[in-house]
C-alpha cells in the first residue's frame, strides 16, 4: 500500500508544475512514497481511482525546466468488444492485411476480414507480418460527462527469448527426440 508522505514540495501545491527553485534538496528527486513492505495492492486508499501521473505531480516536482501542460489523455474506457487478431496475409500492393479475429467477450465465433494498413500505427508497421498478433478493441471513452465511441488496434510486442526459455526449449526438444520411433518399411 502506498502512503503519501508530507514532503515540503507537496504542501500547499496544486497540480501545476512550480518553479524548479522550489526544490530544496539536491537535484536528485527525493523518494515521494513510503512503501509498505510486501504489499502488491495497487494505489492508496484515498486515491484509488486517480492516475499515477496526478499523484506524482502532487508530491514531487521534477528538477527539469517547466514544460507546457499537455491536455491529459482520456484514460477511462469501457470495452465493448476485444478481439485477438492474427495476420493471415499482407497485401502491400493494396495496403491491406487479411486477418483472423477471435472475440474475447461473449460467445462470438471466429471471423476473418481485411483491415486497411492505414489503421496500423506507424510504430507498429514493421510488426505487420503473417502470424503477427494484434488486439483490436472497440470501446467507449468517458471524458467528463461525455461518451465517445473509439477503437484501438495495438500489435503485440514480445521480448527476445530468455535464457530460461531457451533452456526449457532445449530440454523439451530432447524429450521429443527421445520418444520418436521409426515405423517399418512397407513392402
Amino acid at each position: 500500500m502506498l502512503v503519501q508522505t508530507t514532503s515540503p514540495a507537496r504542501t500547499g501545491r496544486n497540480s501545476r508544475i512550480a518553479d524548479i527553485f522550489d526544490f530544496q534538496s539536491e537535484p536528485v528527486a527525493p523518494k515521494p512514497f513510503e512503501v509498505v513492505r510486501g504489499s502488491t495492492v495497487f494505489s492508496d486508499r484515498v486515491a484509488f481511482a486517480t492516475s499515477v501521473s496526478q499523484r506524482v505531480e502532487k508530491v514531487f516536482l521534477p528538477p527539469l525546466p517547466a514544460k507546457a501542460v499537455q491536455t491529459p489523455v482520456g484514460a477511462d474506457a469501457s470495452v465493448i468488444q476485444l478481439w485477438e487478431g492474427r495476420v493471415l496475409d499482407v497485401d502491400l500492393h493494396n495496403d491491406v492485411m487479411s486477418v483472423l479475429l477471435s472475440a474475447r467477450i461473449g460467445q462470438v465465433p471466429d471471423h476473418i476480414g481485411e483491415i486497411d494498413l492505414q489503421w496500423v500505427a506507424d510504430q507498429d508497421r514493421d510488426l505487420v507480418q503473417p502470424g503477427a498478433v494484434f488486439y483490436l478493441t472497440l470501446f467507449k471513452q468517458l471524458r467528463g460527462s461525455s461518451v465517445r465511441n473509439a477503437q484501438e488496434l495495438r500489435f503485440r510486442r514480445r521480448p527476445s527469448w530468455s535464457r530460461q526459455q531457451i533452456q526449457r526449449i532445449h530440454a523439451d526438444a530432447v524429450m521429443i527426440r527421445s520418444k520418436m520411433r521409426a515405423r517399418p518399411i512397407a513392402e
Partner: protein
Amino acid sequence: MQLPWFQRFPTAEDTQTLYNRALSEPCPRATLTRQAEIFSSSIVAVGAFNPAIFTPDWLERNNLIGRDDLEDARKGLSLIVSHQVCAYETDWFALQVLEEQFSLTSKGPLTPAFADLAIGILSFVPHTPITAVGLNFLGHYRLASTEEYHQVGDVLAPKSIWVRLYPEEHATAGLADLTIRIQQTDKNRNQISGGEKQISIQPSAKVRYGVFFAYNDHHVVAPTNEAATAAELAADTISAYWELSWQDAVRVFDGVLSQALAR
C-alpha cells in the same frame, strides 16, 4: 478450439457450487451480465529495483514499446528518471519504478498487450530480486438507480446496526469501504502460493450511483532452484495468471452485484 475467454476459467462453476452448498440455500442470481464503465489493471512487483534502468528509451531499444510511445513518454508531464524513481506515462500505460516497487498501470481500454509489456520488462531484468507480484484489477460499475445503489451497500454492510447506534435524524450511515481477503488452502489447510486475494468495494468516485471494486491477486515469488531467477518466475507468474485473474475479477465483481441486487 479456443473458447472465448469468459468460458476458459476452469473453476467458476465449481466455486459457485461450493458456495451454494456452504450457504445451504440456492444462491439467488439476477440474470445479468454487467459491463464496467471503467476497467483497468495494475501489475505491481515488490523487490529491489534500479529505477534508472527503466527509461522510455530502454523500453523502446528492447522493442517493448514503439517510437510513438517513446515520444509520448519523453514529452509527458510526468516524466521522472533518477536513481530513486522512474515514472512516465503514454496513452496506454503508466509506469512507476521505485527502489522497492515496480508498478505498471493500464490506461484506456485494457488488452493483453498490457500484460505482455510487464512480462517483457521483467524478462529484460532477469537478475532483479523480486519477492512478490500482485495482479490488480479495478472496475467502476454503474447502477441503474439510487435504490440499487443503496441496496448494494445495505446487503454488504447493513445500515440497521449503525442507524441504531446513531439514531439522530440528521445522521446518515453508509458503506465507505469494505475489504475481504480470500486465502485458499490445500486440503491440509496449508496456504497455497498464489492463493491470496483481496477484494475491496467502495462507492465510486468516478461514476454516479456507481460501485468501485479493486481486486488484488497476490503471488509470492520464491525461486526453488537455479532453473529460474526471481524475475523470470515473476514474468512467468504474470504470463500464467494475469488473464485468469482478469476473468476472476470480472466474475467476482459481477457476482457481488448480482447477488446483492437479487435479494
